[in-house]
């Protein structure tokens, strides 16, 4: 009975703690995010390469006008676990952009085209320039944006599709838009994705949902380039640990079986006999506790 109570309490404890972990940090009315069956979710999740390549195209043609993604390098585009462009494709992408390098032997700075080893070009030289060019709102760098928002991929996806007419009588200042999923519902980014915004190089249909899905997938990879490697390694580690755990468990049982447990049960019998004798031989009045 006590054991059951303990067990129930422990289960309750675990459930409670998990619930806390899942609870939102704010108390505003919770908006249900649009769910999607992402290929990278779940323990065996992987990235859809073509989606990543299309997502890169969306980033490049739509988002990169305002959003930097400064922790990505062009070589990442050809590395394993990502869009996996060929080395030449990635090199060609890099060469479209310039970078200031130097000083050279004459002491001057010069521009050259970017290489695989260079980082992605940013639309603005610094945060302040980006902010002032966008009406006082800084378009966040996208390198880890998916990890920086509660709801992750679902949130980004929902936000991209979440522009709608504000409810009747809702006050909106100039340059501010209504988005259902933005905390506070006011966002300074105008709707970025429309059907046909991008002409996909693989010929896929560029619906709003497709654009949002592809760019979100790209951003998830940008934030977690080693996700696939992590899942693969995790699986191997788990398999290994289960095997090792079984072996250690059996070893532990084997070791503990060396104990003379018979002696323990003999001792129990002995003690019981003593008490029994004392109980039957007792001729007194009020035996409170038998020791």
């Amino acid at each position, binding site marked *: 009975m006590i054991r059951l109570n303990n067990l129930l309490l422990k289960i309750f404890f675990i459930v409670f703690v998990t619930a806390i972990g899942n609870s939102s940090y704010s108390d505003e009315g919770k908006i249900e995010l649009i769910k999607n069956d992402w290929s990278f979710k779940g323990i065996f999740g992987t990235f859809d390469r073509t989606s990543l390549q299309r997502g890169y195209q969306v980033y490049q043609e739509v988002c990169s006008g305002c959003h930097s993604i400064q922790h990505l390098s062009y070589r990442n585009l050809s590395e394993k676990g990502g869009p996996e462009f060929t080395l030449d494709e990635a090199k060609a992408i890099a060469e479209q952009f310039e970078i200031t390098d130097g000083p050279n032997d004459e002491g001057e700075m010069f521009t050259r085209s970017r*290489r695989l080893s260079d980082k992605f070009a940013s639309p603005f030289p610094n945060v302040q320039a980006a902010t002032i060019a966008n009406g006082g709102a800084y378009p966040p760098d996208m390198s880890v944006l998916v990890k920086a928002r509660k709801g992750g991929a679902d949130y980004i996806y929902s936000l991209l599709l979440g522009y709608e007419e504000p409810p009747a009588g809702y006050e909106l200042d100039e340059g501010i838009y209504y988005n259902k999923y933005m905390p506070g519902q006011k966002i300074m980014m105008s709707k970025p994705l429309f059907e046909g915004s991008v002409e996909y190089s693989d010929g896929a249909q560029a619906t709003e949902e497709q654009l949002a899905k592809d760019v979100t997938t790209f951003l998830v990879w940008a934030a977690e380039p080693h996700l696939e490697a992590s899942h693969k390694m995790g699986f191997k580690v788990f398999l290994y640990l289960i095997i090792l755990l079984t*072996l250690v468990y059996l070893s532990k049982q084997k070791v503990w079986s060396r104990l003379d447990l018979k002696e323990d049960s003999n001792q129990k019998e002995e003690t019981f006999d003593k008490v029994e004798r004392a109980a039957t031989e007792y001729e007194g009045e009020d035996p409170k506790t038998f020791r």
Partner: protein
Amino acid sequence: MSNEIKSKRRDFLFTATYTIGAVGVGAAIWPLVDQMNPDSSVKALSTTEVDVSSVEPGKTITVLWRGKPIFIRRRTKSEIDEAAAVNLKDLKDPEKDSDRAKNPEWLVMVGVCTHLGCVPLGDRGDYKAWFCPCHGSHYDISGRIRKGPAPTNLEIPKYEFVDSKTIKIG
């Protein structure tokens, strides 16, 4: 079951557990060691492309590759002839010039003295090529050690001409 068989079974279990455990420990240690190996951003810089279109014959430029100086000399006809004419028996580290410069007009070498690592000075020394001031090593117009304490010729890195104007080193 006899005690002996029991004990054999018992030992097998423990041996198996130790072995599997050791495999796990080894696998766990590998990332801790490998993290000190060159990371991918360093490896990305392991090749450098150099534009040599502006290098005149008889001139040497120095570029940085993997943190080290690389001498790229566009040799004149007479320099090439001089390098080819050297008797291998006179060399401490015998090496044909044609083995060192596939395209004889261009000499590409790691500008680090093979003695103790100083950077030799150009257009200097008894062979009018390179001279290391630290301990007096003289290299010839093929970068081969002729005089002084350095044991071997200046190293030739892996390189190739990706086009007529560009050398990719590494």
